[in-house]
């Protein structure tokens, strides 16, 4: 839980996802940055995937047991369910597999990389939309209406 900082406002998360895209596009990234990015992304997608599987198995207590996984899955579900629907779980599992493979210097398939890329791009786009749509502070009135 990180109060008052929404995922859309989290610049470090944005950088992590953008660096993930750079890796998928085979752009050069400093070695340490590449390792940190793959570490971060495989953790995020693995947690989201484990929560997705827990929901699929009707384990309604997983939020009590694994709060971070719940929050991670919510991050994706609330923004990407409208695009991916039922296939979101498979997408998360596949993306998790892609980044774990890259971390181990193995080569995921082009198709899997393309779909992981789409997932990240959709998420970044949703964040951008949220930031653009966030309202300015409204004037406040403390008048009696009586």
């Amino acid at each position: 839980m990180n109060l008052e900082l929404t995922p859309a406002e989290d610049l470090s998360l944005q950088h992590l996802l953008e660096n993930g895209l750079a890796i998928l596009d085979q752009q050069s990234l400093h070695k340490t940055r590449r390792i940190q990015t793959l570490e971060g992304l495989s953790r995020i997608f693995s947690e989201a995937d484990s929560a997705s599987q827990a929901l699929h198995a009707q384990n309604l207590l997983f939020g009590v047991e694994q709060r971070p996984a719940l929050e991670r899955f919510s991050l994706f579900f609330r923004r990407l369910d409208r695009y991916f629907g039922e296939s979101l779980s498979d997408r998360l599992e596949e993306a998790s597999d892609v980044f774990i493979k890259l971390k181990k210097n193995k080569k995921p398939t082009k198709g899997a990389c393309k779909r992981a890329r789409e997932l990240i791009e959709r998420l970044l786009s949703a964040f951008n939309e949220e930031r653009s749509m966030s309202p300015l502070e409204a004037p406040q009135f403390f008048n009696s209406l009586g």
Partner: protein
Amino acid sequence: MPERAERQFCAFFLARLAHETARLKDMPFPGHSTGPKKWLNLVSGLIDTAGSYLELAGKHAIPESEASKLIREAERLGGLAYRALGHVVGSDATLIPHEIVAPLQRWVDGLKIKNTIFFRAEHLPNYELAWFDLKRWRTDLNNPSRSLIGAIDRINWPLLRVTVPGQALGMLPHYAVVGHELGHGVQDQIKPDLTQKKADLEACVQRITVRLAVSSFGRKEQLELVDILANWVDELKADAVGHLLAGPAFYFALCGYLELAGQTYGISRTHPPSDLRRRLLVAELAKGSPSHIEVFEGKTGLRITETVNSSHVPFCPPPDSLFSELKRPYGPLVAAICVELVPYLEVVASIIFAETESFVRRVAPDLIYEPRKLAHDLDSHLDLISVLVPPIEYRDSTGVHAAGLASILNVGWAALLTRLDRMNKPRGPVLSPVAGKMEQLHELLLRAVELSEARRVWEEQV
């Protein structure tokens, strides 16, 4: 690239922020708390990182689109730093009684909470624990400044900020609610096994689907239920910790808070209904022989009930009416989940309270406030506090010792609820005789906290 007005204004904004941050770093914080200064160092780190983005954006070799992105991100970092400054407002010595910080820190240390923590007050009837976790910014943010890396490394994450009401509601006995907030600090370490009541959860889901008149419970519904259930379980864990640390004082303080916080049902996505929380806590206070309730009634004549100190907090209406009422602000799904979770939570509450007790007994057995300690404290101090003798120390078979915070809070509540009429009228102008007596009691308890802490420090050093 040409100088952009946006870049120049952002640089000015950051310079102003840096100046304001430096000014705040010079302020005294109660109890020599290092938390606010560590947070302010983080703010400086964010400002420096934003400054480095701006510098890069001003280089000629940077393409226009990249420069624009860097300026936008510098503005976002500056905005975050500005908001972060707001988080330390109220943590200085002008709003928080300096006497209370060290004893509360003993609770923190006793519960083995290693997180960096600070206390702040605001002018609202609000107690809350805020978590800030920016640890990943060290590795995930592009080009963090050295000062940001250093600040992140010096904080034990997540950083916790405990908010308490400002002076008007900051009467010392109410600080017992902080026990609940510290419970949120350890909630993830408490792992009740709720699988033993799986059938009750399935029945709860069934009732929700009937109430919503749907045939299946999809992922959206599941996720909502999982989220609300996790929130409610965490609230009960925190209540249990508050109860274990402070016994009746926590209950009275929670009730006082619920009474002043708007006299609502209390039920929401984040909190179970207040009447359920009161009922569960009274059940805990009634446990043992003698129980807290028996001891308190025996020594003061006051029976602890579900409405004591909170008689205007309403009980929830029957489920169908509650569903109708909750549907308006929350929509049918959240309303149905909240209504149908109540009986389930009541079933699993004993497991949550037992597991929390087991956790606290394991990590901090000395912090548990037992009924026999309450009996000893009321015997030793209640009559004396009526004649303005503060509860600073107590005697047992091993000698004289400093009174603990829980003892002072419980004696304070007992005096507040049952002995005000015996206290002499305070001298000087007062708004009302009762308010004057309460102020006097508050001052007396603050003195007790300060002197008992001094005595404890002395005991630890000789």
